[in-house]
């Protein structure tokens, strides 16, 4: 059996490989499988919760096209991020205060304004301190320093400060006031509220003529002061303690948020679409291959039993398939998915449960067609003389099915199996489009967001996930086509 199976696999492989569509399919398939293994290995264990948490994405550009869009004439304000944990600082000690001064430069050279400024701190814990203060001053290319663009102050409780995760943004009203004191002429064009609503435009812009604000290109100097007060005159031990605390924090970075980001752009929360595409691949493949293998196994077994044994078993299986075939699959699938979504709303395993339920429903409703084909083929093989001979020689039913019937069915089943993969992938993605989301970052989920939050107007949000879905299912379609041609000589060229 094993040898025959190997020979069959080898024959299929060489037959498929001899066709150009087969070559394309096998190449694509191995590429996808390797990529998804890499992705599954690299997937951080808490990725789903990070993905759905707005905080980690607070310092990324929102609705930003990919960086390479600049080559096609899109004006990109550069995105600048500096991890301050490894950054050079100037230490200052005065009285009971220890200060770390970071100086960074941001080069704006664009027709558009950055989206803003933010500081992100994760997992910082300071012990034996009184207060923790941050001040960010920006010196513009025109030489004017805007003081206290972003300020932050927190005081210790019981001598310690613990920050799990925060994203700091400028106090826009205060910043607007500062900008107006520095540039009183702004008031002739806009009022305070407008500046506050749209502070990056005025922080990074200049009044070119009486009414137009355009970006002020050049080098911006960002001066970030971190000031920590300790309850005594600061000692070397305090400085050591503070410096270590910052170095050991999980994240401490400042960002000038640009308008282009990453390989595939970002969504409405600033999440990297490229990441979702990368980590969505194993899920899509799992659904496609899982559904295909399970439906095929059930269809093979049911069709075989139905055709081989006949009689009441056959009749009941066929009528069961009739009933299954009459039920509208998609509405039932949506109904089940929505019900499960509601029932397991708060369950941490909800994504897995929903994924399994969707997969299960696709399998339960999907095996009928194959079972009908397998049955009719079994019927014709059963009446062959060598089956009679095997029976006379005392072969059991099981033996006949495994030894004589299944090997003949295999090629057809292989083609059918491959064909059922893309429809499962497309159906699962389609469910996400309807808003039935299990919470895992899938390709369909990104498309759904593009519809709801992107108003169908951002190309980097629509094209890459759709192309990813299409290429994956095209792989299976091409494989199916060439398998079908390999086993069905009538489809070959004369």
């Amino acid at each position, binding site marked *: 059996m094993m040898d025959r199976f190997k020979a069959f696999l080898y024959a299929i492989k060489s037959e498929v490989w001899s066709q150009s569509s087969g070559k394309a399919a096998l190449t694509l398939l191995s590429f996808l499988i390797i990529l998804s293994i890499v992705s599954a290995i690299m997937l951080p264990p808490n990725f789903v919760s990070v993905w759905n948490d707005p905080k980690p994405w607070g310092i990324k550009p929102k609705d930003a096209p990919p960086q390479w869009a600049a080559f096609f004439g899109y004006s990109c304000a550069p995105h600048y991020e500096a991890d301050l944990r490894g950054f050079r600082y100037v230490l200052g000690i005065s009285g009971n205060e220890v200060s770390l001064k970071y100086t960074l430069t941001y080069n704006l050279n664009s027709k558009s304004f950055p989206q803003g400024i933010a500081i992100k701190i994760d997992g910082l814990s300071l012990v034996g301190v009184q207060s923790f203060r941050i001040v960010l001053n920006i010196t513009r290319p025109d030489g004017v320093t805007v003081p206290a663009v972003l300020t932050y102050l927190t005081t210790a409780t019981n001598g310690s400060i613990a920050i799990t995760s925060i994203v700091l943004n400028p106090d826009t009203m205060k910043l607007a006031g500062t900008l107006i004191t520095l540039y009183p002429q702004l008031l002739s064009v806009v009022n305070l509220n407008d500046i506050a609503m749209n502070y990056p435009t005025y922080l990074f812009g200049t009044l070119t003529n009486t009414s137009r604000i355009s970006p002020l290109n050049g080098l911006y100097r960002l001066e970030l002061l971190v000031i920590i007060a300790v309850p005594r005159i600061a000692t070397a031990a305090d400085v050591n303690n503070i410096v270590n605390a910052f170095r050991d924090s999980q994240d401490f970075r400042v960002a000038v948020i640009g308008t282009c980001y990453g390989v595939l752009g970002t969504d409405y929360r600033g999440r990297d679409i490229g990441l979702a595409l990368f980590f969505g691949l194993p899920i899509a493949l799992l659904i496609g291959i899982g559904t295909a293998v399970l439906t095929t196994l059930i269809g093979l077994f049911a069709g075989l039993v139905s055709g081989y044994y006949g009689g009441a078993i056959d009749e009941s299986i066929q009528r069961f398939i009739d009933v299954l075939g009459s039920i509208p699959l998609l509405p039932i699938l949506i109904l*089940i998915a929505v019900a499960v979504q509601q029932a397991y709303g708060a369950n941490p395993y909800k994504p897995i449960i929903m994924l399994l339920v969707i997969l299960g429903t696709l399998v339960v409703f999907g095996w009928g067609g194959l079972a009908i084909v397998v049955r009719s083929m079994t019927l014709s093989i059963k009446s062959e003389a060598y089956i009679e001979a095997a029976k006379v020689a005392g072969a059991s039913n099981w033996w006949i099915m495994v030894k004589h019937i299944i090997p003949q069915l295999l090629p057809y089943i292989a083609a059918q199996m491959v064909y059922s993969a893309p429809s499962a992938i497309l159906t699962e993605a389609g469910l996400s489009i309807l808003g039935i989301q299990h919470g895992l970052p899938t390709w369909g989920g990104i498309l759904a967001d593009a519809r709801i939050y992107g108003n*169908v107007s951002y190309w980097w949000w629509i094209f890459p996930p759709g192309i990813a879905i299409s290429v994956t299912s095209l792989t299976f379609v091409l494989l199916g086509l060439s398998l079908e041609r390999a086993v069905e000589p009538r489809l070959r060229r004369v």
Partner: protein
Amino acid sequence: MSIGIIIMRRAVFLALALIIAVFLTGFIIGATGYVDNVVKAIINEEVRAYRQALSKMPNVNQSYVDKLTRSYQQMLVRTYGLDKPWIYRIIPLVYSTLIFKFGDVQQTSVAEVAGFQLPAKASDVILACLPRTIVMITVAELITIVLALLIAPRITFKIGSLADRIAVIYAALTNAIPVWWLALVMIFIFSYRLGVAPQQFRGVIKVLSTMSSAFMAGNAVSFFSSFGNLLSYVWLPILTIVITLLGPWIYSTRAMLLRIVREDFVLAAVARGLPQKVVLRKYILRPALSPIMTSVLLGLAGTLGGYIITESVFDWPGMGTLYYQAIASGDPATILGLTYILTLVYVVARFILEVLYVALDPRVRL
């Protein structure tokens, strides 16, 4: 067995399948407790409003308000049938659906798809949405079928030629591209970038109602002018669907014809020197008629349910959107009514096919 008995048996089993489908839907609605949650939310909302109205009255006695509210809540629980297990609510609903007495729509959002306000009957809502799905999806499917039946026979004799290979590649591509994604792309290009298609498709409700009233009044001018309006709404969805469906349709028709092309009687006809046209018409298309009829009829029957995802993407107020809205908001009468109607259409189409096989294919009668 005589043909009559075979057909009767099929009719019985198909009817059974229909009933089981509706029961299964009812079972999923009831057993998962999904609709119960929706009803509970409605009751809580009504009770809250009731309590608020009572508290607004002058010199209220709090304990009296509590007592009144409690009895009001118990009354609501009894009216909605929440005091009994779900089976007592679902079974009567399934039964009345099966005898075409669809219940009332409970959710505003479901009635809104049809352009109605509550109270509305599920049957009226379904009937209002049906024409909108027909003008978009059924028409698109018809166009696809006609094109496929025109193109496929032309490439049957030229298997492996350039035209054939293009058709196969096109079919493989469109088989892999989801319709709803192409819909998103088409909306992105034609509605948002080029501005030649509408961004909101709900306006089709008004166009169709002016069309039907103009038709009733016999006003030809108004009818044709709103027909132009209708075209401005439907062309993009129809184009989208035709582009994606045409490939698979051509491929499957081609496969059906190819199965016959290699038959001995076709070879014999070619060998006799009959012209290709005659061979195609008399020796290939005739035996291919019944499988082609099957996919045409089942395909058309399937369109009446709307394409749930594609309609949602276009925000097209048809059967698919209605179905989805009913499921998403938990409206049992509409869900069961739609499941019943759609399964009924499918089952009837299957039955017609059984009869047609006997009429079209003399081999069955042997």
